[in-house]
Every structure is written in C-alpha cells, then in structure tokens.
C-alpha cells in the first residue's frame, strides 16, 4: 500500500488510522528527519563550540536511524545497512574526540569557546 501524495483527497480516515497504528519505514524516516532538523537548527543558532558538537552528534544519529530502518524494512538480503551505521558510529566517535581536543586547545590558547570570536581567518 502506498500513500499517494499526488491525490491527497483520496486518503480516507481509515488510511490515516492504519498509518498511525502500523509502524513502518515512513515513521522512522519522519522521526530521523525531525531529529536532523532539530540538530540543524541548533547547529545554526548555537554560539559555543561544544553545543555545536552536540548538534552534529544529533544529526549523525538521525542518519544512523535511517540506515538501520532501511536495513530492517526494505527487502535486502544482508546486514550492509547496519554495518554502514557501525562504521558511521566509529567515524563519529573519532570526530567527537578530535572536536573535544580542538575545543580544549582553542579554549586554552584564546580563552573563549564562542564560535563568533574565532574569526582570525576573516579578511
């Protein structure tokens, strides 16, 4: 069954109830889209380095949810999707370690972790 977005008026109340009570791929895609959007909002609005790092972690988590959901709900024959998610977790762990070390170094050298003050590359 496919929800046809080109004909929104053909969706009945029963279709909507069916969609709400049968958890499938679309729910996980929606959830990860919301998580990614929250992370994007925080990334664009936060001033400190560490909150920005936290928001990047949220966005990486949203991507991993997508990978695992596709692996679980699509007719695939192996666990490639979850393996990609595990590699993504490894890369994210490296990224957060380097990011924390950089934040600590910047704080020690410049006495600030505000991203707006780190503008020495600005012409």
């Amino acid at each position, binding site marked *: *069954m*496919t*929800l046809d*977005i080109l004909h929104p008026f053909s969706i009945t109340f029963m279709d909507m109830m069916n969609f709400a*009570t*049968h*958890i*499938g*791929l*679309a*729910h996980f*895609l*929606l*959830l990860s*889209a*919301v*998580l*990614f*959007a*929250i*992370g*994007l*909002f*925080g990334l*664009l*609005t*936060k001033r*400190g380095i*560490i*909150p920005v790092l*936290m*928001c990047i*972690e*949220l966005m990486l*988590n949203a991507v*991993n949810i997508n990978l*695992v959901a596709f692996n*679980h*709900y*699509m007719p695939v*024959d*192996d*666990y490639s999707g*979850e393996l990609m*998610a*595990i590699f993504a*977790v*490894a*890369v994210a*762990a*490296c990224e*957060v*370690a*380097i990011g*924390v*070390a950089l*934040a*600590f170094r910047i*704080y020690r050298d410049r006495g600030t*972790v505000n991203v707006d003050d780190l503008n020495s590359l600005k012409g």
Partner: protein
Amino acid sequence: MTDVLSFIHFIVNGVMDFLVSIGAPDLIMAGIFYLMAAVTVLSALGVVLMRNVVHSALMLTASFIGVGCLYIYMNASFMGAVQFLVYGGAVAVLIVMAIMLTRRPDMAHSNPSRGALHQLGAAIVAAVFCLVMLIVSMASPFRTEASHLGDEVKGIADLMLTEYVLPFEVAAVLLLIAMIGAIILAKGVSENDA
C-alpha cells in the same frame, strides 16, 4: 479447583482473542514506538533549548538512549548495544569532560543562542528541510513488514570480515590516528621532542 482454573483459562483466552481481534498487538507496538520517539525528540529539543550546557549534555544522553531503544525496536539489538556503549557511554563522558575543561564563570547561561533573526532563519531552514523530508517519506513505499535476515551479529561479522574487511581495517587505523591526534592536540608538543 480444576473448574476454577479452567474458568480462568476460558476468561483469559476470551480476553486475549478479543484484544487480538481489535488489533491490540499493533496498538501496543505503535504505543511503544511513539513513547520512544517522544523521548528522543523531546530530549533533542531540550539539547537545543536548555540554557545550561550541562543540562544540554544530559538531554543529549537521554536522546542517545532513546535512539538506542529504537534500534532495539527494529530488532537491531547489536546496534542498540553499540549505541548505548559508544554514544551513551563514551561520547557523553567526552562531552561532559569538554564542558568541565572549558567551564565559564556562570554555568547558568553557558549555552547562549544567536539573536531572534538568526533563530528565525534557522527555524525556516529546519522547517523547509523537515517538509521536504516529510513529502519524501510519505512517497516512500509504506512498508511495515520486517525482513527476516537471521542472526544479526553473525551476519554483521560475516560481512565485516569478508566483503568489508578493507573499511574495517581503515576504521581501525582511523581510530588510532584520532587517538594520537587528540592527545597531541590537547597536550601539545614541546620543542625538544620534535
């Protein structure tokens, strides 16, 4: 005694049949999903909206644990365990350590945001992204049945040590380089070492 037991059995069977006939298992699974999704999304909102960065870190950990529960919901229990260990454990501790190493005089306002115009712009960007993804998700095949792939850990291990052995080795080298790099960045190199 046997009559009483068989009567209870009869009642329980009837109740179970009734629950199954109105679709209660689906409803319960949907309820669990919505509970975990609410925990995850509200904690993620807390990360962005909290004024104190330590509270943000706590909310981030709650969000990671919610995502791990969702992995377990999708029968990816190994992935859930990895999520709990790596994100709920290591990454959360690293971030709290970074907060404590770069602490400011007043922690109560340690997580400032930009002005209202910036926030409006960011909210529009996030909303447009969310809308596009909503349309894409709704247009995707509405699949609810899971694929049965057998033992998860065995499947991942077979793939990781045969077909994807090169990315596996590269990930190991990457972790080593990240560890050395983080130590050098944080500790610094003295002149007579070089």
